[in-house]
């Protein structure tokens, strides 16, 4: 794996004005993406993973959004960049594959034209040539009859095909970074794994770095190189896939992992769930956001937000917890 840092997020905050006040969707995130890696961003709905990724290219900018911090890409800060500057990055250097391709594709435009539009937005090529390239791309993402599919409207294709079209759009300009926002949630399981393998193969062929947003740890295990776990707008644990999945340090990650059914474990009547519900309101406790739901919480957890630090595992395995892992009682089997 190359270690060249492609995109660096520093102190990113995203807040939205809501009737109750200001909702801190992302409350200070530091994260870097290296070229050619697949970084999985894991968390429940409302944990801020989508808000984080959309703010990388300013797609959630608006009168009610307040975005702070820095996103350094290619020597410039995308948070400070104006719309014109961002437009030249969007779709060309950084592209997004959205979930629910049926909604994300224009229902009144042929899919080939939607791919070609992505090409022609950033490159001065004749329409004809862009169309031909679109058909090529549709073939590349595994659509059986690409010339015919290019002439179809989104509603005429299957869910898996539509998601492939979405991926073809994302890859049309060979971006350095591809943000895949829950690309497989709307698909059934067999199609899901086909699409994941496709992403993995394309990433290997093109060297594209992928930010994979998901709440599905199975997806993480299948394709991710590195994992960052988000809770209440902050990263609570990050590390390589094996570190995070097999040696989780943070109680939240442990909880997530123990709620996944396992084929090799003893049969259980009921999967363990994390008690309580995630923080989604405007008000946040002063200390660790997970403490109210944490099985290991003690009084000092509410004092201050623990820093994201390397404590037990490898040099890049960080977590945001104050628990003493040397105590036997904490040994939880994942």
């Amino acid at each position, binding site marked *: 794996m190359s270690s060249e840092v492609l995109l660096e997020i520093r102190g990113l905050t995203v807040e939205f004005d809501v009737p109750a006040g200001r909702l801190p969707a992302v409350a200070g995130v530091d994260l870097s993406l290296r070229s050619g890696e697949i970084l999985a961003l894991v968390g429940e709905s409302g944990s801020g993973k989508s808000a984080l990724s959309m703010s990388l290219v300013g797609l959630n900018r608006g009168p009610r959004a307040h975005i702070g911090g820095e996103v350094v890409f290619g020597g410039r800060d995308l948070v400070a960049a104006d719309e014109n500057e961002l437009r030249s990055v969007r779709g060309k250097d950084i592209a997004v594959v959205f979930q629910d391709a049926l909604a*994300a594709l224009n229902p009144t435009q042929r899919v080939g034209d939607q791919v070609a539009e992505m090409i022609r*937005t950033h490159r001065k090529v004749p329409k004809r040539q862009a169309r031909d390239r679109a058909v090529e791309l549709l073939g590349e993402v595994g659509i059986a009859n690409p010339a015919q599919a290019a002439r179809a409207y989104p509603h005429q294709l299957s869910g898996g095909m539509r998601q492939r079209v979405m991926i073809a759009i994302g890859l049309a300009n060979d971006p350095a970074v591809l943000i895949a926002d829950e690309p497989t949630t709307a698909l059934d399981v067999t199609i899901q794994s086909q699409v994941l393998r496709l992403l993995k193969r394309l990433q290997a062929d093109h060297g594209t770095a992928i930010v994979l947003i998901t709440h599905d740890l199975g997806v993480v295990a299948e394709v991710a190189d590195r994992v960052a776990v988000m809770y209440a707008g902050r990263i609570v644990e990050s590390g390589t896939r094996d570190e995070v999945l097999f040696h989780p340090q943070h109680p939240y990650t442990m909880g997530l992992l123990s709620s996944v059914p396992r084929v090799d474990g003893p049969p259980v009547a009921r999967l363990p769930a994390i008690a309580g519900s995630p923080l989604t309101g405007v008000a946040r406790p002063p200390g660790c956001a997970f403490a109210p739901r944490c099985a290991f919480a003690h009084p000092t957890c509410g004092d201050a937000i623990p820093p994201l630090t390397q404590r037990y595992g490898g040099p890049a395995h960080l977590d945001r917890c104050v628990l003493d892992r040397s105590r036997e009682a904490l040994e939880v089997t994942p």
Partner: protein
Amino acid sequence: MRLVLKRLAAVPVVLLVLSTMVFAAIRLLPGSPATGLAAGGASGTATAADITANTEKINAALGLDKSLLSQYWSFLSDIVHLDLGSSFYGGNDIAGLLGDTLPATIELTVAAMLIAVLIGMLTGILAALRRGTWIDTATRTIGTVSFSLPWFALGVLGIVVFGVWLRWLPVIGRLPNALDYHPLTNFVLIDAILQDRPELIWPWLQHLILPATTLALSMAGFITRIVRASVLEVLGDDFVRTARMKGLSPGAILRRHVLRNSSLPIVTVLGLQFGSLLGGSVITETVFSYPGVGNLLVNGILQRDYPIVQGAALAIALLFTLVNVAVDLLYLALDPRLRKA
């Protein structure tokens, strides 16, 4: 395609129901064509006895002495044979009268529609893009006001301001009387091209602009509101975010992604509004003495000229139905999801 065929198949049914209603309604009005004719024909010196005698003679001549059922039957069989009859007064052929007036009404309503769509789309898009600003509020307020003003009030206002005070525009008729016009299709624009007479166009436009704008303003106010709501809804759709992700400019997003998708509810409204436009044209044509079907209809009603009322109402209904079939076709063209393979 089946949708359109279905609609076309419904046209005769609609016309049958409508002609029955018109047949009944006009005969429910107090007064009869014969009394008017009888009194008028005696030039003021007629005695009550004369009038009664004349009335009977006239009723017999017009076939109004027969039972309602047999009148209805002969009316229906005439229509089936495409015979709309002739006017009680003067005996003009109804088909000929419609041939003279229908093109004028089509010109008026189409012009009004174009003006309304132009104003409504521009202001509606503007209001949606500047949502929540003073521009949005102002546009919607003006829209609501124009939507609420009755046609006759707007028409009279237009006549007073542009015709009487400013003297910019003619306020009566369709073309100057002095103009030498030999109708071919009776559509002035088409005739001007066919007969190579471009000098017809300017006076025609001058006469058309005031009644057409009168008719258009209330519709424009309505379209503004629909366009605003529709554009706002589409702007929140996921594929618009995809378009932004592609790096498209706001203008390209609006043109290529938002407008087409927000046009569906707008087109529906246009089809339905065309009906009220036709209703409005009856009033507007009367205010401006514009020689269209509406004017013909009003005079027919005032004189109890049954064949004219029946013919004009049928023509208006047919126009409305055909416009709505056209709307269905437009629907299919705009939304591929409706086209069944």
